[in-house]
């Protein structure tokens, strides 16, 4: 073992103590913040599991004495769970897939080819992010009510289609790279493709690949992190979105989970204004948990990609 002089060993000790102190501070901070972040979920869970006696009992704070699944059952029926789950899945997975395909192609076009109006189009893409969807709300509502493009549908079917009460208003724009926050997805892909090296691309061209082949064979396999990021964000945002479904879908059978959650109190109380919070809140919390649960499970399995891929996509660059 090395021998230190007295002053040296004091210095080393000081340094170590400082390190421990900082680590302790950090741990305390993280525990505190984690508590704040996890608290609502835990609180909702604990309240939802409480029976009526436990709710009135002031000695019960976190751990219920009489566990009950009554609230979950109630929420399950109020949310119309299986049906709404299926609907939610429809309006989140399909747009997410289209978002990945369309936005990556657009991002590729913007990142790898030069043409005069490129910057203008990119500026327009960013502009779509700034405009709140509410501005477009009524025209879009009217538009989907009598859906027609260049009178083509009128020519074939004799009258315009009514797309309200279907999921097409949510899905259709994503096919062409529009829809919920898709400007951001195009931006992510553009940044990612811009950061990729030119050598591979040139090698592919030398070997006689067309630009489309190059895109499919070189760029797509190399942009897995970006694809995962965009897919996850798109899926989660569509799952949680209330605004679009609440405008375009009026039929209760077609409601999504998040839409049902937003209305759950009215569903439970049957629309009456006077209600007992002890009766309403626990099932409401149970409902909230049931709605976030699928995404939560999904997140637990994919969080590694979520965090790491965002770093590697270089959103910022």
């Amino acid at each position, binding site marked *: 073992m090395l021998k230190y002089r007295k002053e040296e060993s004091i210095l080393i000790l000081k340094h170590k103590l400082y390190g421990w102190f900082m680590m302790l501070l950090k741990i305390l901070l993280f525990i505190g913040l984690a508590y704040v972040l996890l*608290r609502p979920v835990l609180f909702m869970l604990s309240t939802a599991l409480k029976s009526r006696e436990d709710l009135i009992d*002031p000695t019960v704070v976190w751990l219920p004495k009489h566990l009950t699944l009554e609230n979950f059952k109630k929420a399950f029926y109020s949310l119309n769970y299986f049906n709404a789950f299926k609907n939610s899945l429809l309006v989140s997975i399909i747009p997410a897939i289209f978002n990945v395909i369309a936005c990556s192609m657009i991002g590729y076009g913007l990142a790898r080819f030069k043409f005069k109006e490129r910057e203008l189009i990119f500026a327009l893409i960013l502009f779509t992010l700034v405009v709140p969807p509410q501005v477009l709300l009524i025209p879009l509502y009217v538009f989907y009510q009598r859906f027609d493009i260049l009178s083509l549908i009128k020519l074939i079917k004799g009258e315009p289609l009514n797309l309200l009460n279907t999921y097409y208003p949510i899905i259709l724009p994503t096919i062409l790279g529009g829809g919920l926050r898709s400007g951001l997805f195009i931006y992510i892909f553009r940044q990612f493709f811009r950061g990729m090296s030119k050598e591979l691309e040139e090698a592919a061209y030398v070997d006689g690949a067309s630009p489309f082949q190059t895109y499919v064979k070189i760029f797509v396999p190399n942009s897995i992190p970006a694809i995962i990021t965009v897919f996850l964000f798109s899926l989660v945002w569509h799952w949680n979105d209330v605004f679009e479904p609440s405008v375009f879908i009026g039929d209760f059978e077609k409601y999504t989970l998040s839409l049902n959650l937003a209305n759950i109190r009215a569903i439970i109380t049957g629309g009456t204004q006077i209600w007992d919070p002890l009766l309403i809140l626990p099932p409401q919390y149970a409902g909230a948990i049931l709605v976030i649960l699928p995404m939560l499970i999904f997140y637990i399995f994919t969080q590694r990609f979520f965090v790491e891929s965002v770093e590697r996509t270089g959103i910022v660059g």
Partner: protein
Amino acid sequence: MKNKKKLKTLAQRQARIGRLFVYPWLVGFLIFFAWPFIQSLIFSFSQLDVSPEGYKLIFVGFRNFIKALREDPNFIRYLFTEIGNIFVNIPLIIMFSLFIAILLNQKFKGRTIVRAIFFLPVVVMSGALLYVLESNSLEQFNIGAQSGMALSNSPFLRGIDFRLFLVRIMGNIPFLMPIINAIDRIYEIIWKSGVQILIFLAGLQSIPPSLYEVAHVEGATSWEIFWKITLPMISPIILVNVIYTVIDSFTDYSNDVLRYILEVAFRQLNHGYSAAIAWLYFLIIGVVLLVIIWVISKRVFYMNE
């Protein structure tokens, strides 16, 4: 014909291929964005009657706008609450998320778990959920005050007790208001900064490590390194985050103005007026954003320039 195509320069061919990839977006943009955008401008100057057969427009000039600004008791109030909120929230969210991002960027045991917890809001957070929780917790506060029951415990931590404590020792309420507001918002701030933390983390990763190495060799302290390297290098990302935060909170479901726009359109069925306030709202966001960008971008440091 074939010869002509081959005679095109490389740049021209490149441009054509690029357009092939990008123009589908333009088509979608024109159908699903530009056209409704212009239409809503027209609507805002009109009275609109929607019927199953379509809609009728009656031009009314600036009447809708005048109504919003001078007659409607709700719109201006909601608008100013939201704008006030933004200006308090932005600095808090930016400071908090930068701080957390710097901490999460370091290497320590259990980093994956900590990160997973911090990005939980990104996944779980939905306007509907937050709205359900927040509206409840307010009511619960009243109920709790009345009955002192177990439910006074709301899912959101609020600085209620701490507020009373501060008022008692300081006594000076106007001076304390900003601090109290900030404390009351801590919850909201933490829950709203998930994406910002992600963006900052990505930004921190892109700072060249050589800068830090040089600083260490020169004997700079962590404090100096933060102010002289991290902050200038991250400043473009601060701008990105500020813009994101503004857009995010202006388009959030729990936003009062937006809910009011929806209510006017679908409960009161006053579509023209709803379009008008949506446009006013959009213009005001635009001005706020431009002012913020103008103020911040002067102070942003770009290494490559």
